[in-house]
């Protein structure tokens, strides 16, 4: 039986390749998109844990985390909550550096834990009161910046006190200004984008989040990457678009396989009629057709996995978001791609298998 399935696939290479290619495209799409969303989540995770914090407090009902604005007094109120050990305000300035629009400039208290947690790889953190900027090592490498040089932020030049590395992507690809300087620069004196918070030992982020939102109405606490994705309207759009594309891939893939397999079954009616004539049960014939469908899908899915890994990178490049998102391939992502590929083949095989078992052997043999 397996032998027949394999030789059938092997000796009809054009049809096998054609069907497999249809599946490969579907699987590749799914794998690429899963990698993309996973990358998006990892990026968002970096956003949540800025400064190595446990969670971030943002303004509620904003379209995107970076557009949040909170009053300076908030830090004082938060610090009174028993759940927290440390809290420090951040003002996020986007599109502040012309040469690298994706870079985010963080306005941060020079004495706050956000700034203190930066590991200096060159130069040193400036003494309090200075107008100096700190530059992340990724951004520094991109723009060839050095300690002692100058960086232009929103059209103004700031001396670079040092280059840092924090291990959090957004931070390393951005720069840090003293909070007061950033507030002046953006015309938001006494305001901040969010407050990053460290939790007391043993406090769960989700329960702390609920407590904070209740204690300080109008705030939205982001504790996990999924949540960060949901807060941003753009991100929501992206993940919905992805879902739509996955569903379309499944439908198109399934239909194309069903169509090719139905054609293959029709072409081979007399062959299948013969199997029935020599006593194969309808169930066994259906299993054969099914087996061929699954066999083709496996070939297609394998090709699709490869294509998907490459496609994930291309997609990120095409969307111009490579600065934020690096596609993350996971075993589960690949596994889901495989499952979907095989599912496409099975779904595509059901109709033709059903058709053939409904024919009388005489009609099948006659090929009419």
């Amino acid at each position, binding site marked *: *039986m397996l*032998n*027949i399935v394999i*030789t*059938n696939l*092997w*000796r*009809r290479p054009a049809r096998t390749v054609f069907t497999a290619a249809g599946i490969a495209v579907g699987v590749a799409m799914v794998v690429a998109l899963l990698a993309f969303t996973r990358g998006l989540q990892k990026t968002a995770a970096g956003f949540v844990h800025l400064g190595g914090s446990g969670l971030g407090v943002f303004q509620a009902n904003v379209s995107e985390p970076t557009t949040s604005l909170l009053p300076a007094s908030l830090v004082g109120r938060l610090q009174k909550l028993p759940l927290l050990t440390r809290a420090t305000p951040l003002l996020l300035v986007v599109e502040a550096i012309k040469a690298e629009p994706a870079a985010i400039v963080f306005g941060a208290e020079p004495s706050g834990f956000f700034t203190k947690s930066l590991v200096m790889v060159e130069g040193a953190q400036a003494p309090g009161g200075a107008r100096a900027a700190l530059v992340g090592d990724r951004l520094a490498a991109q723009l060839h910046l050095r300690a002692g040089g100058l960086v232009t932020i929103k059209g103004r030049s700031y001396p670079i006190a040092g280059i840092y590395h924090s291990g959090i992507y957004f931070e390393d690809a951005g720069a840090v200004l003293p909070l007061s300087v950033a507030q002046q620069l953006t015309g938001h004196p006494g305001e901040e984008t969010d407050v990053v918070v460290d939790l007391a030992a043993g406090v769960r982020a989700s329960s702390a989040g609920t407590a904070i939102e209740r204690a300080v109405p109008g705030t939205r606490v982001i504790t996990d990457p999924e949540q960060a994705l949901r807060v941003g309207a753009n991100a929501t759009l992206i993940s919905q678009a992805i879902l739509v594309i996955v569903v379309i891939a499944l439908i198109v893939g399934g239909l194309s396989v069903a169509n090719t397999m139905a054609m293959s079954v029709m072409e081979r009616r*007399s*062959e299948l009629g*013969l*199997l*029935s*004539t*020599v*006593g*194969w*049960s*309808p169930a*066994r014939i259906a299993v054969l057709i099914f087996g061929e469908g699954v066999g083709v899908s496996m070939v297609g899915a394998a090709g699709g996995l490869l294509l998907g890994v490459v496609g994930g990178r291309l997609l990120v490049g095409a969307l111009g978001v490579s600065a934020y998102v690096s596609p993350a391939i996971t075993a589960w992502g690949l596994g889901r791609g495989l499952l979907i590929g095989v599912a496409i083949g099975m779904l595509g095989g059901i109709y033709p298998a059903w058709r053939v078992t409904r024919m*009388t*052997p*005489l*009609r099948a*043999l006659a090929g009419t």
Partner: protein
Amino acid sequence: MSPAAGPEVVLEGVGKRFGTITALRDVSLRAAPGEAVAVTGRSGSGKSTLLALIGGLDQPDAGRILIDGRAVWTERHDARTRRELVGFVFQRHLLLETLSARANVEVPLIGAGMNHRARRRRALELLADVGLAERAEHVPAALSGGERQRVAVARALANEPRLLLADEPTGALDTATSETVLDLIFQLRDQRGMTLVIVSYDEAVSVRADRTISLLDGALATAPA
């Protein structure tokens, strides 16, 4: 004649229509166990339909067919009857072009759920019986017309049928090759004591058969014996 004699085949008032065409009308006949019945008649007279109905490849519209007293087509398509009782040879060899001669002979055995090694052994025995031991691993395209038809005969015998149905088995072969294939079919039938119903225009078939019936426009032209 071998002790494992073929079954008795009885048709009672069998009719079959395809749309407006009446392929068979009120056909009644009886083939005794182990009997060889030749069926003749013009093209379109219903010979192939008759064979297909006896073998359970389609359902009669009227009457019934009994093999050893058991009605054919008791379940859908009746694959089990064909598997356990009936072997078919057609004018077209209907070998699977992607499989070797041996694998083609194994096909009915797969349908019967026989294991790999037993299947292989049995297929090679059968190919030896039809004189093709040397050709076992060739695909159909590498065989001559007569050889292909002999593979088809070996395949028909794979499940040790007691009833052999042959529909113009030599219709696509030249005279000399026809001789060898007919010799083979009758010789195997004699060895195994199978009941044989064979459709042919060939006078040589009528000579070898125990009895010849003739169809005319779907009805029997000679009264059954």
